[in-house]
């Protein structure tokens, strides 16, 4: 479904993506992992068209995405930091995003689920970080798209919201969606991810199921297995 071919990206002298090749098939939850600064966010942003690669090609649904924008209608993205215009209310921002995308949405259901009903008329500037993240999640999941990209989705969520988030992710997976997640919380990966893509030095270092990784690292604990993987780099 998504194909990255020989992707290069430099920021000044810093090489972030160095000839990265990656194939992601349709359906399933893929966790993109890697140490800080390994290029996870850059990779996702290339896919979204926010970062323009120096070299290489990205194919989504059999079409190149570089310098295109219409393909984003079939893609939902949850950004890492939720920061909205402070003077708009929650309801206004939801309506605005709906307005921008010619698609059906199920926002009511999600608003109910995350208990945002009482906050609908509040200004976004007055909300707490966790509540903003809930709004962010509603904005991401209210559309029916084939690809869902989540950048650190668990940020600032309370336990109940986290449970809801996991159940939504599972539901979307059952519908056959492709879900990309970056996170540093390994228990979350262990619980939800089908496959792990491990980035190191701008390349794919490991790609496979969670069990395959554990086996390869000879470690039953995912957190330690990943730590071993990173430690190899430092060694």
């Amino acid at each position, binding site marked *: 479904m998504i194909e990255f071919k020989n992707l290069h990206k430099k*920021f000044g002298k810093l090489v972030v993506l160095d000839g990265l090749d990656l194939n992601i098939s349709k359906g399933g939850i893929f966790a993109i992992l890697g140490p800080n600064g390994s290029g996870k966010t850059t990779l996702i*942003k290339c896919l*979204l*068209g*926010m*970062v*323009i690669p120096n070299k290489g090609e990205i194919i989504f649904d059999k079409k190149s995405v570089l*310098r295109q*924008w*219409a*393909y*984003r*209608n079939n*893609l939902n*993205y949850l*950004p890492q*930091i*939720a*920061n*909205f*215009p*402070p*003077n*708009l209310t929650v309801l*206004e921002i939801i309506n*605005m*995003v709906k*307005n*921008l*995308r010619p698609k059906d949405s199920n926002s009511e259901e999600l608003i109910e689920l995350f208990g945002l009903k009482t906050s609908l008329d509040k200004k976004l500037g007055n909300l707490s970080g966790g509540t903003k993240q809930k709004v962010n999640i509603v*904005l991401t999941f209210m559309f029916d798209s084939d690809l869902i990209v989540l950048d650190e989705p668990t940020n600032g969520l309370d336990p109940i919201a986290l449970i809801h988030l996991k159940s939504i992710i599972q539901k979307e997976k059952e519908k056959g969606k492709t879900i990309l997640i970056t996170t540093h919380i390994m228990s979350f990966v262990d619980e939800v991810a089908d496959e792990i893509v491990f980035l190191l030095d701008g390349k794919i270092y490991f790609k496979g199921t969670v069990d395959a990784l554990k086996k390869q690292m000879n470690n039953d604990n995912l957190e330690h297995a990943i730590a071993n993987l990173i430690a190899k780099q430092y060694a």
Partner: protein
Amino acid sequence: MLKILKYSFYDLMRSRWSYVYFLFYLILGFVLLFLNNDVDKAVITLMNIIIVLTPLIGTIFGVMYYYNSKEFTELLLAQPINRSKIFMGQYLGISISLTLSLVLGLGIPFVLYGLFKSTAIFNFSLLLVVGAFLNFIFVALSYNIALSTENKIKGFGYAILMWLFLAVIYDGIFLTFLVVFNSYPLDKFSLAATMFNPIDLSRILILLKLDISALLGYTGAVFRKFFGTNLGMMISMGVLMLWVMLPVLRMNLKLRKKDF
């Protein structure tokens, strides 16, 4: 684009600063009218204020809005919208809301004072048009600076420096030139130098219309001698338009390569 424009506009129209700006002009208008007791004189005083203040406010609002809405812009960038439409929408949203503050803030006191019965209505309208131009120009310039500068503090600094340069330093350098090279013919040089500064250009444009020779100064006089009043106004208006279009064009070019 219109959707983005609408929301940027709503967002700004609800911010406290738009009201502060609006109230400032409102009070300024009333005070000037009651102190001068004469619409014509008030227009001249206003010109001096507008020519320095609108660029400053446009610059500050431009950089502030860009940096403050950065994360939100990222959210928009992930939506199926063309990049340049997002930024053009924001740009127009800021410029239009600032212009509205200016037009309403000054318009209300002048209309109440009896602008429609006075002959100064054309001068006053020209003043507002120039103010609007300056808004559009300086928001575009500051957006350019913000787009090219990742660091917020630096971006802010450059933007203020740009304003200071065009509003104050430019004239100083210009004047020094005139003094140092006063034994050479400087008409063409000063004509060209005026074109490169939208603030000077606006000043001359208004003074040409007001037809007050005493205030025209050297560049204004050269301008009038060269082009005559009407052609001079048309040319300066045209150059002001270029001052809007070129930064907007550069913004679009920059956007094609920018990483967010």
